[in-house]
């Protein structure tokens, strides 16, 4: 016997409202993303092509210039060698001290009397000993020393020793030469 009941329930399920609302957003987002990817890739490709060509031309120009530098390698090596050596030369010249003024000063002090010894110390200091025959000559040496000190040719004059042995007088002096 056929059934007398009628199925009143809906056989088709309806779309859930949540999915319905996000579908629109996803559609818009997918279009935007795909557009960005496509256009961005095309633009990057064009940029890559243009910049690549420019790089190639610049590379070519660079190689040509490098070849010109290589052609002048003799000049470059000479220039580099001279420049490095000039640093050394300049340093040496800057630290060269002429000892001639020390001798000149000593010659002025001892006049024509025989020099017994000469030695140099720190900070331009000089120690000498000189032989003289008479006390007058010794006084002359000492007065010359004082005059030179007043003229600022020497500084810090010191009578280190004075010895008299018969006719021989030996004077030991020290001073600083003002250069």
């Amino acid at each position, binding site marked *: 016997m056929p059934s007398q009941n009628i199925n009143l329930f809906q056989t088709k399920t309806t779309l859930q409202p949540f999915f319905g609302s996000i579908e629109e957003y996803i559609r818009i987002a997918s279009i935007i993303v795909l557009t960005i990817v496509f256009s961005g890739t095309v633009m990057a490709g064009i940029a890559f092509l243009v910049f690549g060509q420019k790089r190639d031309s610049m590379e070519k120009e660079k190689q040509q210039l490098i070849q010109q530098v290589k052609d002048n390698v003799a000049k470059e090596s000479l220039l580099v060698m*001279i420049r490095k050596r000039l640093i050394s030369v300049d340093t040496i010249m800057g630290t060269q001290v002429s000892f001639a003024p020390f001798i000149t000063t000593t010659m002025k002090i001892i006049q024509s009397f025989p020099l017994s010894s000469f030695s140099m110390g720190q900070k331009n200091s000089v120690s000498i000993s000189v032989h003289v025959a008479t006390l007058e000559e010794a006084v002359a040496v000492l007065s010359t020393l004082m005059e030179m000190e007043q003229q600022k040719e020497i500084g810090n004059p010191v009578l280190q020793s004075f010895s008299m042995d018969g006719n021989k007088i030996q004077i030991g002096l020290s001073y600083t030469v003002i250069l």
Partner: protein
Amino acid sequence: MIPKIRRFIRLHKPLVAHSILLFIGVIGLFTALVPSVQKSIMLVRDLQTMNKEIGSIQKKVTTLSLLDEGGLEKSAHDVLSAVPADKSVSTLLSTVEALAGKNNLYISDMSLEGIGTLATGSGTQPTQPEGNSLSETITLQGELIQLRNFLSDCVRVRRLMRVKNMEITSLPKSTLITAKITLEFFYLPFPATLGKASDPLEPFSQKELGVLAKLASYPVSYAGSMQPIYIDDASVTPNVPTTPAVSDPFFPVQRTGAPGPNASPTPRPTPIPTSTPKPTSQPTSSPTSFPTPTP
């Protein structure tokens, strides 16, 4: 599980399709677009770097083309004569000898310190700004004024030297003095590398040109300009026979007694003297020489 998914897909077809497109877009964004942009940015940076390099090389080429090679060679000669590339003991000794000779000072003693190995030392990299150094101690005898002139010349001559120390003593019963002077000489090896092609290269600055001009004004006191120390020896050198002594240099010569039957009548030359004693005008037998055949 699968029937549920199928059912969901059937029910939400547009949603699924747009989701897949969005997913592909996002993947494309990270796998294609971002690397492409990164590469483009790197390319732009490369171009900027290359542009700088080209500018630098261009400037270098211009600098090099403006340089006069002849002038550079002269300057190189000047600086090398002041500070050679190796120890160059010969120029060191001849400089001192020439200076002493010029000022009429007698060199009674001479010693070199720090020569080290027989190698030139050109490979030794310098540790000081002035380069590697070599010391020489000399003892000079002469007048005080001559010594002063020597010391004055020392600092105005090539090769460059520096007086390190000096002691003076007087000779007894004489106006002459003895000076013991320690001199320092310098040498600097050639640069090992030139650097990159794009490294900047500037022409000489005014200061460098000034140093070069000052250096060029210093006389070179060795080689051609060196004064002979033993003038007598130098004058007799041309008298030394220069013709070959024997016709056959491989012929065995007897050391004692009469000469061999095939001995050449030409006398054997005396070795060319480089210092005293003076050679006589007629070559004579020396302890190591061979008997001279008499006609």
